[in-house]
C-alpha cells in the first residue's frame, strides 16, 4: 500500500517536472497548443468517471460544466480582472455548487432519465448565457491575455503547465476516492442501489458528493480555456461535443480504475490532434464514433478490461 503511494506521487512529480522542463526547452508553440487540449480532456475524463464510472451515473452534461467554467473565468476577467488562479478556484467553487444543485434535482432519477436530465441542463445553461449581454451574448467575447509570469516564455506555455497541475489534482482526487470507503460505497450503489442502502450506504449523499467533486473539477478544467482561445462564445463553450468526447474517452479507457480515463483521453486526444493536422478536424467526430462502437462491441470494459483479460490469460497459461 505505502509503496504504491510513493510510486504514484513520484510519477506525478516526474510528470510535472517533465512538463516544466518542456516549457523551458521547447521553443515551438504548437506542441503546447495541442498538448493543452489533451491535458484538458484528461481532467474532464477523470472528473467524468468519478460520477459516471464509480457511481455509474452517465452524465451527458460535461459541456454544461465545462462551459460554466469558461464563463466564470470570462465574467471574472471582465468584472474584476482577477488573475488565472482566482479564475480557476472560483470556477471550481461554482462547479461544486452547480454539481450540488444538479445532484439534488436529478440524482433521484436513475439510468437513462438522469442522462437525459443532464443534456437538458446543458441546453438550459447555454441558452441563459447566450442571452446574457454582459459576457458577450451569442456573438461571444474577446479576451485580452495579461502579462505572462516570468518563468514562462509565453502564455500558452503557462496554461499548459497550469492544466498539467489540474491533471495531477484530478487524478489524485479520483485515486483517493477510488481507494477509500467513498469509492467502495459508490461501487456498491452502482452495483445495486437498494442493496447498498440496506447495507448502510447513504446512497444519495455519496452520489451528491461524487457530483460535486466531478462538477468542480470539470469547471476548473474549463476556466483556463477562455485565456487559451482569447475568445469565448456560448455555442463552442457549451458544445455537446465535449460531452460526447469525454464520455467516449472514459468508456474507451475503462472506468473501473482512474488510469482508464487517462489512457482513453491520451489515446483519443492524440488521435484527434493528429487527424486535425493531417486530414481535417471534421473527421474527428467520425473516428470518435467508430472507435466508440468498436469498443462497446469488442471491449465493453475498455482498454482496462483488455489489459486485465490479457493478464489473466497469461496467468492462466502459466499455471
Amino acid at each position, binding site marked *: 500500500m505505502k509503496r504504491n503511494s510513493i510510486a504514484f506521487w513520484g510519477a506525478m512529480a516526474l510528470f510535472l517536472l517533465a512538463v516544466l522542463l518542456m516549457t523551458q526547452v521547447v521553443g515551438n508553440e504548437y506542441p503546447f497548443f495541442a498538448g493543452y487540449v489533451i491535458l484538458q480532456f484528461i481532467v474532464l475524463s477523470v472528473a467524468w468517471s468519478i460520477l459516471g464510472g464509480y457511481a455509474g451515473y452517465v452524465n451527458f452534461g460535461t459541456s454544461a460544466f465545462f462551459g460554466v467554467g469558461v464563463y466564470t473565468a470570462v465574467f471574472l476577467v471582465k468584472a474584476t480582472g482577477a488573475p488565472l488562479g482566482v479564475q480557476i478556484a472560483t470556477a471550481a467553487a461554482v462547479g461544486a455548487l452547480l454539481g450540488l444543485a444538479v445532484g439534488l434535482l436529478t440524482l433521484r432519477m436513475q439510468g437513462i432519465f438522469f442522462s437525459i436530465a443532464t443534456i437538458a441542463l446543458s441546453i438550459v445553461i447555454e441558452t441563459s448565457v447566450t442571452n446574457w449581454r454582459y459576457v458577450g451574448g451569442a456573438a461571444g467575447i474577446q479576451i485580452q491575455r495579461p502579462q505572462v509570469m516570468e518563468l514562462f516564455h509565453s502564455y500558452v506555455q503557462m496554461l499548459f503547465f497550469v492544466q498539467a497541475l489540474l491533471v495531477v489534482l484530478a487524478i489524485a482526487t479520483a485515486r483517493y476516492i477510488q481507494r477509500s*470507503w467513498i469509492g*467502495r*460505497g459508490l*461501487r*456498491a450503489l*452502482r*452495483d*445495486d442501489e*437498494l*442493496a*447498498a*442502502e*440496506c*447495507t*448502510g*450506504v*447513504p*446512497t*444519495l449523499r455519496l452520489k451528491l458528493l461524487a457530483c460535486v467533486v466531478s462538477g468542480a473539477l470539470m469547471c476548473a478544467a474549463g476556466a483556463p480555456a477562455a485565456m487559451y482561445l482569447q475568445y469565448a462564445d456560448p455555442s463552442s463553450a457549451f458544445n455537446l461535443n465535449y460531452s460526447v468526447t469525454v464520455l467516449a474517452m472514459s468508456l474507451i479507457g475503462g472506468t*473501473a480504475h482512474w488510469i482508464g480515463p487517462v489512457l482513453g483521453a491520451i489515446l483519443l486526444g492524440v488521435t484527434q490532434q493528429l487527424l486535425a493536422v493531417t486530414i481535417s478536424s471534421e473527421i474527428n467526430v467520425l473516428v470518435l464514433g467508430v472507435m466508440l462502437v468498436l469498443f462497446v462491441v469488442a471491449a465493453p470494459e475498455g482498454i482496462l478490461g483488455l489489459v486485465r483479460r490479457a493478464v489473466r490469460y497469461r496467468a492462466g497459461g502459466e499455471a
Partner: protein
Amino acid sequence: MTPPGDSEQALQPLLRIDAVTKRFGGFVALDNVSVDIRPGERLGLIGPNGSGKTTLINCISGALRAEAGSVVFLGEDITRLPPHIRTRRGIARSFQIPRPFKSMTVAENLMVALDFATVAGAFVPEAERRDTVMSVLTRTGLASKADISTTRLSQVELRKMELARAMATHPKLLISDEAMAGLSTSEVDEVLDLLLALAAQDITIIMIEHIMQAVMRFSQRVMCLDAGKIIAIGAPAEVMANRRVQEAYLGT
C-alpha cells in the same frame, strides 16, 4: 439468553408495527397491520404469494414508506427514516432474489457493511477489519469463498452471502426474505441451521418462508398474512391448524 414465550408482557417490544397501511395505486398491499416483535424472538412470516409479506418487510427496512401507521424500533419512530439509517440502528435484511454487489468479491461485499453500517469515524486497522469479515464468513460457512467474485457463487452460497453481509452490519433484527426458496432439502437445512445459530446469539429474526417444515422448526411464533391483513398469529401448530390459514393456502 432471553427466555422464549411467557414473560412477553414485561418486555418492551424490539419492533412495534402500528396500523401500517401501504397502497400501490388502488391496490391495498398492507391494510392496517399491527404487530409487536419481542427481543430475541424467532418469528415466521407466512402467507400466499401477493399477501404483503415482502411489502411489510420493505416497510420495516425502509425500502418502502408506509402511507399510514408507524414503525417503532427500540422506542424510536423510524417510519420516515431512509434505509441506511435503519440499518445503522440495527435492522438488516436479505433479499428474496439475491442482490450481491456484483463487481466485488465476497469479502468486499462484507467490507461495505463494515465501512458504512458500524460506528462512523472509528478508525479500525485493515487487518482487524479483515479478521471481522473472516469471522462472519467462517460462521456462515463461506470462509473458503472470501476472495471469489460473487458472480461465481452458487445459489445457496449467494443466499448465505446475503445473510453474512446482513450480519456484518451487526444487526439487532435480521429479516430473512425467503432465503431458502429453490434450494435442495440439504441446502434448506444448512441455511436453517445458520439462522438458528444466529438466533442463538441474541439476534431477533423474522423469517419469511414457504417451506413449512422450515417454518415449523424455526419459529417460536408464526404470523400469517393474507391480502394485506394478519389472519392468524400465535404458536406454530395453532396457526397451521387455523381454518382461515388453510383456506388462504389451499384456496378453498
